[in-house]
């Protein structure tokens, strides 16, 4: 009985640091009450980068790195584990975090209380995200999910009016419902298996009604948190109503945590259940999300709403790994998660700038935005949109290519048409937005709209960040080979024979 805990397993300190550097920074920012936020952020970013580099090197060498917290190990203790998938999400978190931390001081300038609260909330969110990417314990994941929920909702209502409060409340209700469904599933799993560790569970899975029901409950819970169709209702108001840096975090990372867990749960924890029926069910849900989100995005009149509905649609892609179930699909989904994250962050930050300068984000007002010298923001918006449509030469294109290849290999014509159609719909709703930027303002040549005044009030870092992220989204189209090599460590599929 005891040997499990005395096995000489190397516990890599890097994993712990990845969670605790942001957490300690959060503690510090509560203590300092908003002072020295920049230095805290810089140190945190540097620290997490170092730890991430360290862990990445290990994963590249050993495909999987673990840390047995308390030295106990599963099934009694809690383990942290990093593989390629975790690393992909950890790096995405870091990049998004860098962008958000950079713009936050300027974005919340002049709003002391909001700024005071933003830092501890965001740093805790970061710790919770990293904890989620590394967790393998079902109950521990319940706690990280709650951390994510509370931090995300608190950030979403930060500094908003009653609309933001209402949206946040709706988000909270969905998310708490999701947590409870997850917890009930965990209870059922524990009752039937006596273990909470995903890997141990996956090895000794007992297939019975309780396990099936638990799997369904946990999946529904995660779907509510990931705003997967038909549990998406909370997302558009919450993401569209939050401050721009927060929207970027929510869209790029927080919803993805739930999808990530969906993958972890089914491919690691419940491999024996992940058969045809489940695959088809998730495939259909993904397809519904892709089409529904796209069509609704086409109907929106506000920039942030379009971006928010686009998130619903884009998350649907991630579910395609279930029906396609191949290495190519895994690569595609992984890369889609990355490039979507970066692109979404860029778009929300750009939309935030438009909102700040033009005063609203109605589509009809965008021609003025062009006049207001929002050049870099708009350029970032364009680059990110191109990536989101899956057009070359961007990360989104590589992802779409890999997914399509997988669809041809395994899925057949239905999935192929779905991906193609969804890409065209994305192009439709995004070009609807971009076309507005090229349109001649109604007032003819009148240059008298917000103009230089607006640009002057926009700090450089805010103005440039969307462009930088957009460039990253494009660069992702060129570095996929080395990135995927790292991020495929420990993937649940093997490369198909050529």
């Amino acid at each position, binding site marked *: 009985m005891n040997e499990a805990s005395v096995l000489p397993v190397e516990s890599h300190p890097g994993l712990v640091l990845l969670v605790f550097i942001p957490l300690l920074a959060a503690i510090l920012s509560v203590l300092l009450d908003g002072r020295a936020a920049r230095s805290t952020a810089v140190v945190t970013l540097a620290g997490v980068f170092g730890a991430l580099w360290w862990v990445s090197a290990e994963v590249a060498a050993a495909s999987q790195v673990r840390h047995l917290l308390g030295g106990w190990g599963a099934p009694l203790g809690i383990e942290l584990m990093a593989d390629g998938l975790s690393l992909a999400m950890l790096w995405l978190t870091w990049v998004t975090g860098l962008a958000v931390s950079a713009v936050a001081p300027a974005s919340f300038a002049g709003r002391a209380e909001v700024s005071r609260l933003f830092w501890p909330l965001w740093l805790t969110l970061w710790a919770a995200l990293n904890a989620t990417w590394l967790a393998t314990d079902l109950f521990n994941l319940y706690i990280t999910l709650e951390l994510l929920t509370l931090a995300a909702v608190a950030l979403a209502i930060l500094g908003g009016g009653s609309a933001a409060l209402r949206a946040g409340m709706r988000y909270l209700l969905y998310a708490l419902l999701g947590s409870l469904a997850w917890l009930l599933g965990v209870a059922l799993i524990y009752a039937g298996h006596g273990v909470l560790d995903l890997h141990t569970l996956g090895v000794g899975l007992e297939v019975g009604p309780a396990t099936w029901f638990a799997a369904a409950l946990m999946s529904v819970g995660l779907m509510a948190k990931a705003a997967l169709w038909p549990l998406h209702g909370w997302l558009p108001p919450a993401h569209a109503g939050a401050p721009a840096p927060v929207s970027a975090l929510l869209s790029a990372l927080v919803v993805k945590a739930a999808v990530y867990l969906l993958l972890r749960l089914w491919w690691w924890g419940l491999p024996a259940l992940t058969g045809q029926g489940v695959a088809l069910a998730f495939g259909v849900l993904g397809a519904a999300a892709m089409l529904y989100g796209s069509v609704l995005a086409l109907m929106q009149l506000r920039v942030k709403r379009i971006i928010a509905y686009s998130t619903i649609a884009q998350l649907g892609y991630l579910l395609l790994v279930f029906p396609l179930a191949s290495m190519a699909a895994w690569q595609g989904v992984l890369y889609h998660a990355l490039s979507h994250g970066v692109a979404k962050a860029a778009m929300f930050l750009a939309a935030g700038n438009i909102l700040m300068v033009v005063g609203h984000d109605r589509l009809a007002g965008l021609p003025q935005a062009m006049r207001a010298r929002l050049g870099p923001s708009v350029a970032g918006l364009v680059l990110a949109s191109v990536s989101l449509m899956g057009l070359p030469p961007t990360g989104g294109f590589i992802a779409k290519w890999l997914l399509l290849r997988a669809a041809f290999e395994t899925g057949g014509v239905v999935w192929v048409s779905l991906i193609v159609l969804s890409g*065209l719909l994305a192009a439709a709703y995004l070009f609807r937005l971009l076309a507005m930027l090229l*349109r001649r303002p109604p007032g003819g040549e009148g240059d008298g709209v917000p103009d230089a005044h607006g640009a002057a009030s926009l700090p450089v870092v805010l103005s440039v960040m969307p462009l930088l992220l957009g460039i990253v989204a494009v660069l992702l189209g060129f570095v996929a080979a080395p990135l995927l090599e790292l991020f495929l460590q420990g993937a649940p599929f093997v490369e198909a024979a050529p």
Partner: protein
Amino acid sequence: MALYTALPLLALMSSLLAAVVIFLLPEAARRWRTLVNVAAAVVKLILVAVMLAGVMQGHEFGFAMMLAPGLELRLQADALSLLFITLSAVLWLFTTVYAIGYLENSPNRGRFFGYFSLCVAATMGVATAGNLFTFFIFYELLTLATYPLVTHRGTPEAMRGGRIYLAYTLAGGAALLAGIILLENAGGSLAFIAGGSVEQLAVDDPALFSIIFWLLIGGIGVKAALVPLHGWLPVAMVAPAPVSALLHAVAVVKAGAFGITRIVFDVFGVQTTDALGLGPVLAALAAVTILYGSVRALAQTDIKRRLAFSTVSQVSYITLGIALAGPVVAVGGLVHLVHQGLMKITLFFCAGNWAETLGIHRIDQLDGVGQRMPWTSAAFTLGALGMIGVPPTAGFISKWYLGTGALQVGHGWVIAVLVASTVLNAAYFLPVLRRLWFAPPSRDWEERLPGTRAETTLALLIPTVIVALLALGAGVLAGLSLSPLGWAELIVLREYAR
């Protein structure tokens, strides 16, 4: 040495860098922008000349990098690429000068020239693509870069034109993508190899490869304006004249025709295409397009719309030549790639000169313009006679090779098509010439550029005259080995040498 073999990349970067620099320049920096534009065009011309010399001596130029597992970005310069590169590099220089003159004092020039350069970079990429994957990347990039040019004026008609253009080209891109991945999935090589590489596979599964062929041709045919995929071309005429010149002569339509050549020559191979029975069908489609375009052109009263339908017709000469499996007919098709470009750009420059100088847009306004603007009208006459195919113009060379070549491989019906087309060409061009030179001046125009010493500004006039002379020279000097004809013969020799 590495730099020397990477010349295709450098040629591409010369435009790409120019695009980036121009985007970064402030709107008011007119001189700098002009300098960058012209310098980039000249530099590229030099690079292309070096490559041309190299290829003549049998050097190989290539650059490759892995974008994702199994996806290689490959640029290479072979004889066929150089035919296209040289055409676009030469014409870009003149179009740039022309565009600088044309857009004098109009708003958003920075944006215009940025996308303009991007567009040429994409064309370079299409021309030097070493495999279908790379081809697709630049093919889509071309779509993205041309869209803002089409909608440049920002008027409702421009936006509508842009929308239709996008709908066609993006749908075509999707079909192309599906075709490429299907080809890859069926085991075919994506690399461009003279003589094709799918012979054996196609014999094994002719039905599948027919589908692939039509997906590819369908996707590319959109840009080549193959009936019934031509609908966007007349609508896109709302763009400024240099853009139309670019679309019709240098970039978009040519990229389509070039792509069809690549598919037939270097993916399927002429023999395989013919063996599958695809060639004659494609040729028939091209023939229909030739006649349809001419008939529609006849009915247009707007100069640019008439020219647009003329393009629909003329570009399919290229397709026709490629589709019929014979060396001489292929030479006719390939050489028309260049000839049509030279002639059509002349015509569009003339149309632009008239519009810009006298505000003339309709054919019935042209009465007696030959007296007011003799140089422009003479250039137009040269181009029009070439289009009709009067000896010894370039158009005559093309038609001669097409006709004799078709007879050689037993497709006598092509002669009938050529004759009918020539009659129609004459029917829609000769009345214009009559109005220009022989009708009494109606003075139904407004002088927009008073005070210029020549008939119009030199920036407009000089490129027009030069390209007209080039068009003439291509026909008269066809016997030289470096003439378009000589080069086309070299390409065909290599293709058929196999």
